């Protein structure tokens, strides 16, 4: 056989070829790839809903979709994107693949639990696909009561069950990451020598463990009320609709940090490598991650400023909302200053990462506007909010996800993607994104509410602009699908460390062997020991590279 094929046999990809060697694998790297497949499928399911929505909204009279269908589509878009794409994307694909390698371990602490998590995800995905195909749900991904419990005509219980099971998958993965980080670090890998990606995934996992059970109980109560006709949130039976909102947002606000902190971890890895210098303020970055997670549990009321909560509680929630923005601002400053006295290479991963910094900053600042009590009275439940969270989730998290995919592509597959296409797609995605979502800030300020299938005719220009941007964005997403797929067959073979990075994952073969390392690494260096004067670096196992 050829040397290339012989080499592949030694790696986790070539070890065994049978279907059951994949479906029953304990290898975190194979499980990561399987998650990648599942998550990508749902990205396109959610994305097709978005495509239909933007096509429909080109026309203020809205003739493409019936109102019922439109309402079910935006609900499906939210549910699928939040729970079946954004939350698992970076942790379950990149996190699963990289965490053991970054800390010098051979696998996660509980490999079988990891596999079980993937199966749980797919079961929840099947339930989701089931309720989508039999007609969907129109409550919005937020399931507000009493509409969802007493008035909605769709498959609310099935949707609640799908998200409930999905939550178990999240908890299993998170538990694995936390335990692994505590217990399986290689000798010399102290907490403050951990790469920021590990910190980010660790902190995210803590949030997942503490917040997801509350969502599970909240949705269980909604399903029970709907199934058995007992009034937990029904005002005519003494229930309080606002109690649902408090319980739901107690989870859902930390959930947005679940979606963005891993992205921040990826960005830290990429910026430092492509700027060839250590990240500015490593400990500050760690502290910022932890602060965001902790404070993020106490700001949920800012989704309810106009809902009728007490004025005192509104003031407290607004204050805490401003406080939680401070560590995010610190991170943005630190990334920016990491570009000073650097030696910057603008490869595709770096372009995506810089795109993250820009778009996340805009999204975060508009979050301040929403956190300002008086402003929120006007902007709550308008397209301003839609634009705000898309800037963070899509401009932010999805950009970072693509940054990570491109950065670690050679490590995962052993192949190079075509760099020129990578850069082109990154720029296209950035431009398409801005054209899609910037007009929505204007629409929001002009008073267009969310979840409207029809709107006043004088708002058409902005809607058309947004939809035009969406078509560019769609190309930006499809291109990587094409050239990354192409690279699997025709891409140039990659060495162990093509980016010349310091992490432990780069000090082993691309793709890695089954147990990651031939010998357990001994860690003697903090991460990111790059020298901008000549681009040389010291990897974390202490070896100096010119």
């Amino acid at each position, binding site marked *: 056989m050829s040397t290339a094929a012989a080499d592949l046999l030694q790696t986790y990809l070539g070890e065994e070829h049978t279907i059951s060697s994949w479906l029953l694998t304990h290898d975190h790297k194979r499980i990561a790839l399987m998650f990648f497949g599942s998550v990508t499928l749902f990205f396109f399911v959610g994305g097709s809903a978005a495509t239909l929505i933007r096509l429909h909204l080109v026309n203020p009279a809205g003739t493409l979709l019936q109102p*019922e269908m439109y309402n079910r589509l935006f609900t499906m878009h939210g549910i699928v994107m939040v729970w079946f794409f954004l939350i698992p994307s970076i942790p379950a694909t990149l996190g699963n693949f990289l965490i053991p390698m970054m800390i010098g371990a051979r696998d996660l602490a509980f490999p079988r639990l990891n596999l079980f998590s993937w199966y749980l995800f797919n079961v929840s995905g099947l339930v989701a696909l089931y309720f989508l195909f039999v007609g969907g749900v129109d*409550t*919005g991904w937020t399931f507000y009561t*009493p*509409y969802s419990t*007493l008035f909605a005509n769709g498959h609310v219980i099935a949707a609640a069950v799908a998200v409930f099971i999905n939550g178990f998958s999240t908890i299993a993965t998170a538990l694995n990451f936390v335990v692994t980080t505590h217990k399986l670090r290689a000798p010399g890998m102290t907490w403050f020598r951990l790469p920021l990606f590990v910190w980010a995934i660790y902190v995210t996992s803590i949030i997942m463990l503490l917040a997801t059970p509350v969502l599970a109980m909240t949705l269980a109560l909604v399903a029970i009320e709907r199934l058995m006709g007992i009034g937990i949130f029904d*005002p005519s039976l*003494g229930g309080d*609709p*606002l109690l649902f909102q408090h319980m739901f947002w107690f989870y859902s606000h930390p959930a947005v940090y679940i979606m963005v902190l891993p992205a921040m971890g990826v960005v830290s890895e990429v910026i430092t490598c492509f700027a060839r*210098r250590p990240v*500015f303020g*490593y400990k500050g970055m760690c502290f910022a991650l932890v602060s965001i997670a902790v404070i993020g549990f106490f700001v949920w009321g800012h989704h309810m400023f*106009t809902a*009728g909560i007490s*004025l005192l509680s*509104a*003031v407290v929630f*607004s*204050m805490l909302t*401003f*406080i939680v*923005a*401070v560590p995010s*601002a*610190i991170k943005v*400053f*630190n990334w*920016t*200053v990491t*570009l*000073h*006295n*650097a*030696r910057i*290479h603008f490869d595709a991963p770096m372009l995506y990462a810089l795109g993250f910094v*820009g778009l996340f*900053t805009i999204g975060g*600042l508009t979050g*301040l*506007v929403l*956190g*300002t*009590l*008086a*402003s929120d*009275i*006007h902007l709550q*439940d308008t397209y301003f909010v839609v634009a705000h969270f898309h800037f963070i989730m899509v401009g932010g998290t999805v950009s970072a996800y693509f940054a990570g995919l491109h950065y670690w592509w050679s490590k995962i597959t052993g192949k190079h993607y075509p760099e020129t296409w990578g850069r082109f797609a990154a720029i296209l995605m950035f431009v398409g994104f801005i054209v899609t979502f910037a007009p929505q800030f204007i629409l929001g*300020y*002009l*008073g267009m*509410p*969310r*979840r*409207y299938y*029809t709107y006043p005719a004088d708002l058409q220009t902005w809607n058309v602009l947004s939809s035009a941007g969406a078509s560019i964005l769609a190309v930006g997403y499809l291109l990587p699908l094409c050239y990354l797929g192409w690279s699997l067959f025709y891409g140039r073979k990659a060495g162990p460390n093509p980016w010349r990075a310091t992490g432990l994952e780069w000090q082993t073969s691309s793709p890695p062997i089954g147990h990651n390392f031939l010998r357990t690494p001994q860690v003697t260096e903090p991460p990111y020991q790059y020298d*901008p*004067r000549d*681009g040389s670096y010291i990897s974390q196992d202490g070896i100096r590279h010119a």
Partner: protein
Amino acid sequence: MHEWVPFWPRNAALSASIIDTINIGEFALIALILVFVFGMMITFGVRYRHGSARPRTAVAERSWRFEIGWTSATIAAFFVLFVLGANAYLFLYEAPRHQDLELYVVGKQWMWKIEHPGGQREIDAMHVPLGSTVRVVLASEDVIHSLFIPAFRLKHDVVPGQFETFWFRATRTGSYQLECSEFCGTQHAHMRGTVTVMRPAAYARWLTDQGVAESLAQRGFALFRKYGCSGCHGTGSDVHAPSLAGLYGSIAHLADGRAVRADERYIRDCILIPQTQRVAGYPPVMPSFQGQLSEEDLINLLAYIQSLSEGPRP
């Protein structure tokens, strides 16, 4: 504002001016921050690209001064924004010290029903006088809605099972959009209407033009008798029940020691869940009317009880 900024929405109320001022300040600050951050990124990106000959130095990690510096600046700026926003929010959401007019709005799938104290009714339309402080009582017949008037920059959720209130003062005549901004079902996007601000004289004419015989308070009095409330709360009753004259707006002393203001929420709870509002010194014998009264009935009763109180409202 909207005259010279191409896509600025119209400003028709005091609240709009307040919120616009805060927002313009915020957008200016945001623009400054973006110029600062993006400027740095672009400058560094160009200066320190790997092809540039600029000399780099060894990285000396002395970050704490910078970190503390920009963290403090950030906290200071945020604190100012927070205080301005909270201050305005309290002003806009707290009950006004003095009101000129009270309107009653019932939201239901998928229309708005507006009632004026004189009994005039509108659907998906709200006529209000210019310059008056208008207080609105909100009720929902089914799910959560949200009354949103973009030209006033105001909204408030309408939650079933409780009365919500907010107030506004219109400063410009004209017709403005009224929308529902909390998803409430299939025709949520059609739950829209028009707010018409008229000069006081025109408004008074409009009121009489509606040709309504009975005010809300009169309708409320009819319900008061029909449901037997006067049997206990009326003047000739021998049941020991609290008098309702002057009740609205006063302080009520409850059996568990609490003292609460008798506002619309209190009145509603007394009617629907009297067991939670037992008044000190009275036997807990009031029956509940849960399920017997529609939202409009409750509003009429509220209007009647309000009419029994003289003087400024809470």
